[in-house]
Structure formats: structure tokens, C-alpha cells
């Protein structure tokens, strides 16, 4: 009885245990079992009649088997809707796979079985309240996928609630749900926009992509919702998942075109010549800033360009192309070049990717040959390319052709003409024709080459040549009567209608240059007229008319014969044309007026056709879009607006939440710095502004290009201010990236510290802190220089390592700084440093007193107690060699003499650089030396901080996404109240307690000793001894390590 009840209990409590229960059930023999179990092995042979029975059985394994077969039915497109009632009963199953399959089924058929689908709703509503975020999310996901109009209000409510859920994952799901609800009921638009507005403000990288997608789907015209979030989106972009990046970039492109003025004005729109010149000239030209004097780029515009650039390196081809189109549509002309290399790289990708990329390049290369000319060889056609790839490459090569490279291109074309793919060979001939018309130097060469092709054995090649030659001759008809004669000779051998028609047209047009041949050709045509294609017949009529006018003596009868044939032709076009020509040329009483002009009508000089690319005007569509690919407007395509003549109010993008300028400004400077690497920055500004400006420090903006960067420089100054103040006051929230930065520019650093604004004083919180002001600065200086010195060592490697991960995640920084407080708890635990056996009688133990280190604020203090267990005094105990990769340490003074049985406690400072790497050094006595190492637990690398709950929340808000790590644990029973939790946490890590308003949430705060990065720990108690531990810190390595330690401590009794 007892065992029964426990069994039930566990069944109800945790889903995880049902497989065990099932196994138990499986062993009990029932009669239906054998038969149904057989189905497992013979899915294909059995009819589907038993499915219902299986679903209604009380065993999950049978149900699961049935569901799998049903899914297989759905997958092959067969109808399984009659099983709906049986399936939907299992929606609340505890077996996860079964439940998932039921969801798949439900979503597929809910639309057809609306009433029955409603039965499942309550299950989801319950799950929406589940403490587990993943369960909440999946419930919302399925609920919103059920396309049943009746539940719209329920969905709306669920979305609204989920949008303010704690978990970013649930919020992301709600963003997806918005689109689903909108497509189900567009009337909800207004309410949905409210939710979108709310979610757009979300700072999590998880949410950003999905909510922008929802924005694009529901209200793409509500640009005003973006203003306040523009800068945040730009800054988050690098960390958003790749699919979200594509959507955000596309949206921001559109946004930027409505908000900023054109950066192209000076360049002259699409002026190819000046463009190439600009291009080839050294990048230094930018530096001169001659163009920027008149045009000032909005700093937000620059921000966007700068933050998207690193994404050109993405492995996702869609991301690369979306950045490329952003640069194409938004960047100043001389900066667009950065995308070339990345686009060319994509040509190595799959066939389909090549196709789309080549299309985009084709459009670009028409306007900007210079961009792709150096990469011309990448567009050479390979025999293994698919036809549409070949023709695109041909297109691009033709666009790239100029006087300098035409000979190379033509040589390449010669090989193509011989290709076995005749379609492609014909395309090449057209391309040659285009080159010939575009570049007058080679027209003759091309023409001769084409004439040679007329003797080619392949008919398509010859026909295509004829057509192209015809077009070329029109441009300069005077010199080429021999070519026309040659073609007339070929006429008998050519069967392709288009080519025959072309020759006939040529004869007619230039009949006066070939007076002997033309009538003869007409004679031949008269014979074969009835068997010709329509297009040839039309041209025959044309030729006849023209000859009649110029040479009526020889051709009058022939013409009349042909006109008669035409009159009774089956095709009404030809009959019509014949009637028209007859009225026009044959004088009779009715056609008095027009007849006089017949000659002028038919033999008017005709302008030469312009051979141009089919990609000529593709750029009316935004590059990279579906509409661009298919060259028609796809449904839902959003037009890219023209640049506004006057920029709309820039201040709309300012975020004036709590700290009006400060909140935003540092983040601009900083994220700019961190997102974009230095070297690529250099590329932009060459060696001009960047360094110089930094030197100038607080916003004395340099005159030339800094106009565009004025906000940045001033913001840099802002952040500098903050930096110096935070640096000097020891409690600093200064980030690792800053310390790195400062180390690299320690010169300018010094300058700035002299310029510290008075405001700094007010920020300093306590007298004690201001004491350490000098110290702090000195310490900073030394530590940064030491970091530089040892930069080759692995120690700084690991240091920078932990930084680099977090750098790009830097968020805005507030002025609220946590104060360092005394330790909440000092663990008594001592660790062996040197055992007396190995130490020849000298034993040493160390412990962490958790006091701020007196020597340098970045160090962790360690107490070592030395004991002499020998019978003779030990002399000169000191620290010796620290090894090549030694950490920065402050040694204790040499202990001159330690008597037998005596012990002494010394203290030591070690700068662990915020890593748990052991400090290795040698402990020496007069005679011996022993290698020892201090291995800190991650928790010892912190200093506790006090802050208010409000500050805590604020800081936490800035450290989401990549900076957050969390885990759900089952707490040991003793640990469920405030005191034990605080004690356990304090034992593990040197953190301060943050007063909390809620009983079930416990917060702890601290900062890392070395770089002063904020570490926030939240322990949230859930029902039945479950707890969620969340750690927010930009130290992405320390976070998970601390999490692991905390987990261990809190689950342990």
C-alpha cells in the first residue's frame, strides 16, 4: 500500500518518472498488448484502423507508436483528421515525446476541427502559468498556432502576459505569437502594436530579432516606434541570433532611408567615372574631409554602419548579403567597397546562394564597375556551372568590361563561344555584342570575330551572331557592305527564323549598298515565301517594299507577287501588313497623301539599338530582396524611400529615461569602441581622427571629419569622465574592456586624469574611498602597464580572454555604483599550501580573509600561516621565483627567523586577473625552496558590494543575454529560508546581501577584485524547494563557474 502511494505521488509530481512507471506497466501482461506491440514492427503492413484503439489504450508506449504512425501519414500528405478526437485527448500527456507529437497534430488539424480543438485550450492555459519558462513558452507557442478564431481573446491575453514575462525566452515566443494572431485576426492590430511597442523596448538579444519580425509583419509603417529603440538595436545587433540579424538589418535599412540625409550628394549620383577615380585613389581622401565639410553624417547613421560591418564576417550568407545591401543603400560611396570581398567569398557557397549573390552583384556592377573589377577572375565561367549561373557571370563580366580589360575578357569569351552548352555560347555572343557597342575601340575586332563565327558549324551560334551583327552594323553601316554581302551568301544555309529575318532586314535597310544582291535575295524569298516562319514573312514584305521604292525597275513584279502571297496568308498580321504596305507604296487614287511619304517612312534613318543589361533598372528594388530576384514586386514588399532632403528631428532617438544623456552617451562611445575593432576603425578614418581625437579628450572636436563624430567624441569624454572617477573611487563599476582600453592608451589616460571635471568629486561616495584615490590611480597605472608587459604570457592571455567575450556585450553604464562593504562571512577553511613533510618541517596554510587588499585594490588578499615543525629555527622565509607566467603579487616581508614550534601569519596580495588560474610561486627558506600554488575558488575573487534593490535591478537589466547564466536546482530542505541561503551563498562567494522586498527572492551583489565588473546573484525560490539561480556578470567565464559552485552548495544539505 505504501509503495503504491509513493508511486502515485511520483507520477503526479514529476513527468520525468513516467517512463519508469511505464516500464513497470509493460511487464504486466494483457491480452491487447501482444497484438498492438506487433504493430511496432510492421507499421507498413497494417491498416490504420487500429490507430484509434491504440490511442485510447492506457499505455503511453502504444499511444506513442500510434502517434508516430499518424505523423508519418501527415508527413506524406495523407489525411488523418478523423482521428482528431482520439488524439486530442492525449494533449495533457506526461510523456514529452507523445505530447510533442500531439501538438504537431493539433496544430495541423485544429483549423478543420475547431470545436474539438477547444477541448485542448485549458491545458495550455494551465501550462502558461507553469513555473518553468520552457513549458510556458511551448504552451504559448502551440496555443498561438491553433488557428481557431474563437480563442483570439485568450491568445491576446496570453500574449500580453507573456510579453512581460520574466524569461526572455517566453517574451521571444510572445513576439512570434503576435504575428500568428495578426494573421488570424487583423482587427487586433491596435492591441498588438501596443505589445510590439513594449517588446521593442526589451533589452534582451533573444527578443530583438523576433519582435522586429513581428513589427515588419504587423505595422512596418510605424517607424515612430523604432526611434527610441534605434540605438539599442544597433548595439545589440552583433549578439542577436543570425536570423534575427537579417530581419533587423533589413528593417534598419528602411528606417535609415527615412531619417538621415543622403551621404552621396558630393559624390555625384552614380557617376561612374568619378566613382572609379575616387575608388582607386587612396583611402586618405576621406581624411581630408573635403567632402564632409558640406555634409555631416548623423552619428546615428554612422553607428549603424559601424555596428553592422563586423557581420560581413558571418558564416550565414543571408546576414552577409543583408549587410552588403545596407552598405549599398546607406553608406557613402567610397565606403561601399568593404562589402566586395565578402560578396565574392560567397561565390564559393552553394549553387543557389551563388545565384542570388550574383544577381545582386550584377545590379551593383552596372553602377559601380570599380567595386568588382579587381575580382574579375572570380566571375570566370566554369564548365560545371549551372546555366543560370553562367549567364549571370556573363552578365557581370560584360558590365565590368572597359578599355583596359576588354582584351582579357574577349579572350575569355572566345573559350566560352566554343562551349558545348550552345545556349551559353549564344549568350556569350550577345555579350560580345554588348561589349562591342559599349567600348568603341573594340567594335571592329568584335565584328570581325563575329563574322568568323558565321562559319561556325552550330546553327544557334551562327544565328545569334547574325542577330548581333545586325545590331552592330546599325551603329556604323557605312563601312561594312562586304559583311552584308557575306551574310547574304550565308542566307541559304541559315534556317533559324530570327537570323533569316535579321538578314532580310539588313538587306532591305542597306539595299542601296548591295544593289546587285538584294533583288536576288528577294527572288529566292518569293520562291520559298509560303514555307517561311511568320517573322521571316514579315521581313520579306518589308524587304520587298523597300526594294520597290529604291529599285522598282527590277523588283516591281516580284514585289507584287509577294504582296499577293501575303494577302492570302493564314496569319492576320501578315495580311494586315501586306495591305498596309500595298496602300503605302503602290500608287493608286485612294492613297494620295501618304504615298508621297512612303520613302521617308520606310527608309527613315533608324537609331541604333542600345544593347543594355537586363539588370539595368533592377536597382529600383532593394537589393537582396525577393522582389529584386524576380524583378517584380513581390507581395508585402516594402518600398525603400528616397533620402529626405532635410533630416527629420534627430532628437527623437534620444533616450531620456532616467539619465537623459549619460544613459545613452557612454554607451555610444563604448559600444562603438567595442563593437568595431580598432583596425577596422582605422580603415574608415585611416590614421586621422581616431587617435588624435582621443588625445584631445573631452570633446574639443577636431574640425574636419569630427563633425560627423562630434557626438561620439563628446560621449567618449563622458565615458572618460566616468572612467576616471570610477577608477579613482575604488568601488568602480569600471569594466574590463575599459581597463583594457586604458592600458592601451595609458598616455592619454594620464592626460585625462589631470583634466578630471569637478563633478567627479561629487560622485565619490565615502571618505575612505577618496583616500584611496591616489592609490587607485597608481594601481591602475601599474596594473595596466604590467598587463602590457606580460601580454605574451598566458596569464594576460587568459585575462584578455575573459574580457573579450564580454566586451562586445557591454551595455550602458549607470552612475549608480555599488559600494564595497565588509564581507558577510569569512570562511574558516584553510587550505594546505605546503605540507610539513614536503616542506622539510615548514608547513604553510592559506586562507582568504576576504578583506580588501591593502597593497593594491585589484588584488585578493591571502593570509598564510607559517609553522615551524622542526626542532631548529628556520631563517629567511620569503617568496622566491614566481615563474614565467606568474601573476602579479605583493609579497610579504621576509620572515627573518621562525623558532621551532612557533607560527606566524603573513599576508599576501595576488592579482588573479579575475581568473581561477593558480598563483604559482616558490616559498623559500635560507636553505630550501618549495614550489607552491594558491588555487582560489571563483567566489574568492569578488568583493562584496552593497546596493539597493533598485540599483540591483537596474544593473541586472544591463547584464542580460550573453551575460546571464541561470539554472534551476532543487534546494536541500534546510536551505529554504533566508538565513541559510545567505550563509550558503556567502560561504561560496564573497558577496554582499542586497535587501530584498520579496521573501522568495534573495539577491547578492559584488564586484570582481581585479577589474571591478559587477556580479549579481539572484536566488529565486519556487514552490517545493525548487529554486532558480541567476547570475548576471559580464565575466562570461566566471558566471558559469560561480553558478556551478552555488548549485553545489545549495543542493547540498
Amino acid at each position, binding site marked *: 500500500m505504501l509503495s503504491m502511494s509513493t508511486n502515485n505521488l511520483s507520477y503526479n509530481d514529476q513527468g520525468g518518472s513516467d517512463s519508469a512507471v511505464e516500464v513497470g506497466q509493460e511487464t504486466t501482461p494483457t491480452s491487447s498488448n501482444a497484438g498492438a506491440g506487433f504493430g511496432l514492427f510492421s507499421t507498413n503492413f497494417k491498416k490504420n484502423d487500429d490507430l484509434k484503439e491504440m490511442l485510447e489504450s492506457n499505455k503511453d508506449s502504444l499511444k506513442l507508436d500510434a502517434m508516430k504512425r499518424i505523423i508519418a501519414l501527415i508527413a506524406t500528405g495523407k489525411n488523418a483528421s478523423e482521428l482528431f478526437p482520439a488524439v486530442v485527448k492525449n494533449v495533457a500527456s506526461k510523456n514529452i515525446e507523445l505530447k510533442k507529437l500531439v501538438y504537431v497534430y493539433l496544430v495541423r488539424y485544429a483549423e478543420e476541427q475547431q470545436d474539438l480543438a477547444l477541448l485542448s485550450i485549458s491545458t495550455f492555459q494551465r501550462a502558461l502559468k507553469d513555473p518553468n519558462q520552457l513549458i510556458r513558452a511551448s504552451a504559448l507557442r502551440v496555443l498561438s498556432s491553433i488557428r481557431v478564431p474563437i480563442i483570439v481573446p485568450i491568445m491576446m491575453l496570453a500574449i500580453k502576459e507573456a510579453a512581460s514575462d520574466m524569461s526572455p525566452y517566453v517574451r521571444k515566443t510572445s513576439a512570434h505569437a503576435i504575428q*500568428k494572431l495578426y494573421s488570424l485576426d487583423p482587427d487586433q492590430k491596435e492591441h498588438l502594436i501596443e505589445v510590439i511597442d513594449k517588446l521593442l523596448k526589451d533589452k534582451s538579444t533573444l527578443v530583438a530579432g523576433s519582435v522586429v519580425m513581428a513589427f515588419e509583419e504587423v505595422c512596418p509603417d510605424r517607424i515612430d516606434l523604432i526611434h527610441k529603440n534605434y540605438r539599442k538595436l544597433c548595439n545589440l545587433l552583433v549578439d542577436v541570433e543570425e536570423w534575427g540579424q537579417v530581419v533587423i538589418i533589413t528593417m534598419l535599412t528602411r528606417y535609415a532611408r527615412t531619417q538621415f540625409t543622403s551621404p552621396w550628394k558630393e559624390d555625384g549620383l552614380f557617376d561612374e567615372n568619378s566613382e572609379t577615380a575616387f575608388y582607386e585613389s587612396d583611402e586618405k581622401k576621406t581624411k581630408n574631409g573635403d567632402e564632409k565639410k558640406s555634409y555631416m553624417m548623423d552619428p546615428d547613421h554612422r553607428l549603424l554602419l559601424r555596428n553592422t560591418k563586423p557581420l560581413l564576417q558571418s558564416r550565414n550568407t543571408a546576414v552577409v548579403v543583408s549587410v552588403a545591401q545596407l552598405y549599398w543603400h546607406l553608406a557613402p560611396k567610397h565606403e561601399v567597397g568593404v562589402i566586395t570581398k565578402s560578396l565574392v567569398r560567397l561565390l*564559393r557557397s552553394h549553387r543557389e546562394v551563388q545565384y542570388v549573390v550574383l544577381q545582386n552583384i550584377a545590379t551593383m556592377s552596372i553602377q559601380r564597375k570599380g567595386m568588382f573589377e579587381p575580382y574579375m577572375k572570380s566571375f570566370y565561367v566554369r564548365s560545371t556551372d549551372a546555366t543560370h549561373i553562367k549567364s549571370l557571370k556573363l552578365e557581370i563580366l560584360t558590365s565590368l568590361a572597359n578599355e583596359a580589360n576588354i582584351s582579357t575578357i574577349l579572350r575569355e569569351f572566345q573559350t566560352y563561344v566554343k562551349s558545348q552548352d550552345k545556349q551559353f555560347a549564344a549568350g556569350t555572343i550577345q555579350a560580345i555584342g554588348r561589349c562591342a557597342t559599349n567600348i568603341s575601340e573594340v567594335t571592329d575586332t568584335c565584328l570581325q570575330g563575329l563574322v568568323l563565327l558565321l562559319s561556325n558549324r552550330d546553327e544557334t551560334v551562327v544565328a545569334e551572331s547574325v542577330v548581333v551583327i545586325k545590331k552592330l552594323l546599325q551603329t556604323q553601316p557605312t563601312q561594312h557592305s562586304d559583311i552584308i554581302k557575306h551574310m547574304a551568301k550565308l542566307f541559304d544555309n541559315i534556317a533559324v527564323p530570327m537570323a533569316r529575318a535579321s538578314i532580310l532586314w539588313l538587306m532591305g535597310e542597306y539595299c542601296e549598298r548591295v544593289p546587285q544582291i538584294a533583288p536576288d535575295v528577294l527572288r529566292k524569298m518569293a520562291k520559298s515565301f509560303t514555307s517561311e516562319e511568320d517573322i521571316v514573312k514579315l521581313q520579306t514584305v518589308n524587304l520587298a517594299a523597300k526594294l520597290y521604292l529604291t529599285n522598282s525597275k527590277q523588283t516591281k513584279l516580284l514585289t507584287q507577287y509577294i504582296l499577293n502571297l501575303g494577302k492570302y496568308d493564314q496569319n492576320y498580321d501578315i495580311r494586315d501588313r501586306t495591305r498596309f504596305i500595298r496602300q503605302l507604296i503602290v500608287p493608286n487614287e485612294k492613297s494620295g497623301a501618304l504615298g508621297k511619304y512612303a520613302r521617308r517612312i520606310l527608309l527613315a534613318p533608324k537609331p541604333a539599338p542600345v544593347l543594355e543589361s537586363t539588370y539595368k533598372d533592377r536597382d529600383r528594388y532593394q537589393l537582396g530582396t525577393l522582389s529584386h530576384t524576380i524583378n517584380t514586386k513581390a507581395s508585402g514588399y516594402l518600398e525603400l524611400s528616397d533620402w529626405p532632403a532635410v533630416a527629420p528631428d534627430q532628437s527623437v532617438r534620444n533616450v531620456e529615461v532616467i539619465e537623459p544623456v549619460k544613459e545613452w552617451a557612454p554607451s555610444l562611445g563604448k559600444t562603438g569602441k567595442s563593437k568595431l575593432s580598432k583596425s577596422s576603425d582605422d580603415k574608415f578614418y585611416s590614421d586621422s581622427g581616431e587617435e588624435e581625437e582621443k588625445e584631445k579628450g573631452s570633446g574639443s572636436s577636431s574640425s574636419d571629419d569630427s563633425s560627423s563624430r562630434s557626438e561620439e567624441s563628446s560621449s567618449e569624454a563622458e565615458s572618460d569622465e566616468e572612467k576616471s572617477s570610477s577608477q579613482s573611487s575604488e568601488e568602480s563599476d569600471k569594466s574590463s574592456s575599459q581597463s583594457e582600453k586604458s592600458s592601451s592608451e595609458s598616455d592619454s589616460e594620464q592626460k585625462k586624469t589631470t583634466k578630471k571635471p569637478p563633478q567627479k568629486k561629487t560622485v565619490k561616495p565615502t571618505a575612505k574611498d577618496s583616500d584611496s584615490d591616489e592609490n587607485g590611480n597608481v594601481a591602475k597605472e601599474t596594473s595596466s602597464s604590467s598587463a602590457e608587459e606580460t601580454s605574451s604570457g598566458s596569464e594576460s592571455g587568459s585575462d584578455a580572454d575573459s574580457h573579450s567575450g564580454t566586451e562586445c556585450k557591454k551595455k550602458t553604464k549607470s552612475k549608480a555604483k555599488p559600494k564595497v562593504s565588509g564581507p558577510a562571512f569569512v570562511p574558516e577553511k584553510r587550505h594546505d599550501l605546503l605540507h610539513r613533510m614536503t616542506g622539510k618541517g615548514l608547513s604553510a596554510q592559506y586562507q582568504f580573509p576576504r578583506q580588501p587588499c591593502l597593497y593594491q585594490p585589484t588584488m585578493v588578499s591571502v593570509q598564510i600561516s607559517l609553522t615551524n615543525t622542526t626542532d631548529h629555527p628556520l631563517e629567511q622565509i620569503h617568496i622566491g621565483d614566481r615563474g614565467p607566467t606568474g601573476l602579479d603579487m605583493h609579497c610579504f616581508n621576509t620572515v627573518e627567523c621562525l623558532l621551532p614550534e612557533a607560527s606566524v601569519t603573513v599576508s599576501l596580495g595576488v592579482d588573479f586577473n579575475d581568473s581561477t588560474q593558480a598563483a604559482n610561486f616558490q616559498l623559500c627558506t635560507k636553505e630550501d625552496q618549495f614550489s607552491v600554488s594558491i588555487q582560489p575558488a571563483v567566489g574568492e575573487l569578488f568583493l562584496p558590494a552593497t546596493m539597493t534593490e533598485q540599483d540591483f535591478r537596474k544593473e541586472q537589466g544591463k547584464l542580460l543575454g550573453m551575460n546571464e547564466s541561470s539554472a534551476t536546482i532543487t534546494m536541500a530542505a534546510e536551505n529554504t529560508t533566508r538565513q541559510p541561503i545567505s550563509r550558503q551563498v556567502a560561504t561560496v562567494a564573497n558577496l554582499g546581501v542586497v535587501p530584498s522586498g520579496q521573501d522568495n527572492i534573495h539577491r547578492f551583489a559584488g564586484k570582481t577584485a581585479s577589474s571591478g565588473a559587477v556580479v549579481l546573484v539572484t536566488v529565486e525560490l519556487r514552490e517545493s524547494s525548487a529554486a532558480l539561480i541567476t547570475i548576471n556578470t559580464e565575466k562570461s567565464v566566471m558566471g558559469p563557474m560561480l553558478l556551478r559552485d552555488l548549485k553545489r552548495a545549495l543542493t547540498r544539505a
Partner: protein
Amino acid sequence: MIHSLFLVNSSGDIFLEKHWKSVVSRSVCDYFFEAQERASEPENVPPVIPTPHHYLISVLRHRIYFVAVIQSEVPPLFVIEFLHRVVDTFQDYFGVCTEAAIKDNVVVVYELLEEMLDNGFPLATESNILKELIKPPTILRTVVNTITGSTNVGEQLPTGQLSVVPWRRTGVKYTNNEAYFDVVEEIDAIIDKSGSTITAEIQGVIDACVKLTGMPDLTLSFMNPRLLDDVSFHPCVRFKRWEAERILSFIPPDGNFRLLSYHVSSQNLVAIPVYVKHNITFREGSSQGRFELTLGPKQTMGKGVEAVLVSSQLPRGVLNTNLNPTQGTYTFDPVTKLLSWDVGKINPQKLPSLKGSMSLQAGASKPDENPTINIQFKIQQSALSGLKVNRLDMYGEKYKPFKGIKYMTKAGKFQALLSN
């Protein structure tokens, strides 16, 4: 975004369909079949096909068309990239991506597709997360599942999706901790009839197989990082660090992944590892042609050229060939006119050659088409660009991993143009 997905096999049957929004009738694929009929080769089907109400975007991999149905504007590459990810995932799960494999695992396929997209927008595409959600089928697990009735859906909810490093599973444990890196370079080149290089470029990748416990943080440095000026990274690589120090710093995904790919363009000098000497003549009016081909190594840095395979599409006029290889075997298919010669390893002392005569169609005139030959080869333990890994360090975990690095050069699209 992506509305529906249809899988079409080479004989034109739809064998799987999945809808993420309301159901789209499979008759929409008729437009695709039309395009397929028009195309001479399977590769020539255009990737984007507009139809009156939908747009079809397809990719062809392993002779299966993956046709996505789109209803409104979306960047086509977004869809194409996603479809390729789907194929990669299938390959990852089932070893091969064939119609049979997909049909055998239709439930897993369906579960995967369900997780990968939500309402047509990609949700989880990282293989590490997917594997946490849905365990890949193995023979053992299938048997066990059958007997115990347990499932291949992960019992635990995936935490990866919420983690700071979404590409890595949590709680990874190995008894042997090892990290292997393969530097594989493919050289693409076109060599003209005189033996000079028309284009040559190198496409390199670093594929990794990392099986390390916990949350290791790796750094990989190169002897000559300068070579890598055109790279794309796995999202785990810290871009900032690369820009500043030219060091790859990353927390790796668990298992196999492509760390980075790079491109050494034709503007750099690329050493061509093999050369071809040939003499092919067709005489006008004669029914015989001479064929002579010799291969030799060139600039291989002392490494042997292996697994050499030469293939060439001979002109249509060639009826048959009678050739003698000094090594390896050759075949000629008189129907497709495809000549292929499996050479094996090139011995620099005794160069492999293929000599003999071709019989031509009687009365046919001299073929004017230019035969090209495609060459495949491998060079072990050498990266043609000269890229060398300096060292690999691990932080964040305490054990000592076993590290290995391997270099290999392969021919990509390596063509030599022959003259008549």
C-alpha cells in the same frame, strides 16, 4: 516567412510535406515541376520560381529538392541558407541525407522541422540545441527504445536555448578529453593550354571535433595569421579578439563544427601543385585521333600527391578510345563520352601518363569543342597556403586535453583547358 516545405525526389514525387502556417495544397509544386521539365539538367532548375500566389524557393542537395513555399517578401538567401541548414542537420542526424533515410526517420524529421521553425521563422538551428531536444537515432537507441518504450525526445528541457553560449550544450562530460582540428584547403584553378594559370584560389576551412568536458574556453593562434584576411567565423568566435590580436578565442560547441572558413584569393600568388602535359590531335578527315596526357608534381613542398583522378568530357565525335595508362586504370563511357583515369599516387621519378588513340566517327569533321580535364587530388599534411597553427590553449577547465591538428590540401574545381 517560410510557409511550407515540400521534399521532392529525383523522379518528381513529393515524399514529405510540412506546413508551419495554414496548409498549402501540394498542387503548388506543379509550377516547380514545370520548371523542372524545362531545365535540361537537375541543377538548372532556377532556385526562385514565382507563381501566381506563392513563390517557390528550392535547393537541390543529394538529389532531393527542398522546395519552400513563400507567400510574401523575404530575402531569398534567408530561405536558401535555412534550407541548407536543414539538410546539414539531417545529414548530421542520419549520417546521410537520402530519401530512404528521411522516410525511415520521418518522425524525427518532423520533430526537427517543428523545432527549427516557429510560424516560419527560424527558432533553433544550432545542432547542439537540437540534439538536446531530440536525440539522434542510433541503432542501439532504436533497439532500446523498442524494448523499453522510452523515447528519443530529450526528457530534459533544453537549457541551451537560454544559456549564454547557445551553441554549447551544458553538462558535457567525457572521459577522454580531446580536441582535433583539421585544416582543409581546396584549390580551385583554371590552367590554360600552355600550362599557365588563369585563376587559382584557395578555399580553406578549419573543421573541429571538440570533445571536452564542461565549459572550456579555447584560444587558437596561428604562425601566420596574415594569410587570413578574408574569413567567416562560427558565431562562437570572439570577433573583437580576432581583430585586435589575430587570435581565435572561443567557447566551442560540443562535437563537430566548422570553426572558420577562409579564402585566399586569386590576387595572392597560389602555388599550383600539379602540372599537365598533353598532346591531343584530331586530323581532319581521318577517323583516328592521338591522345597523350602526362601528369607531374610541382611545388608540393615535398609532400606526395595522392588520390589523383583525372576526368574529361571528350568531344561528341569520339567513338571510342584505346589508351594505355602507365599506372592506374582508365575508363571511357562511349555514351556520355566521359573519360576518367584513376591515377592514384604520383611518383615523381616515374610520371604517370596516358597514351593512345581515339577512334572518331567516320566522316565527321574535326571537333571544334575544347575538351577540358578536371583533376582531383589530395596532399596530406600540407596546407597549400602555408597556414600553420601555432598553439592551442585551454582555460576555464582544469584537465589536460589531448590536442591534434591535421592539414590537408584537396583539389576543388581544378581544370586544365586542352587545345585541339
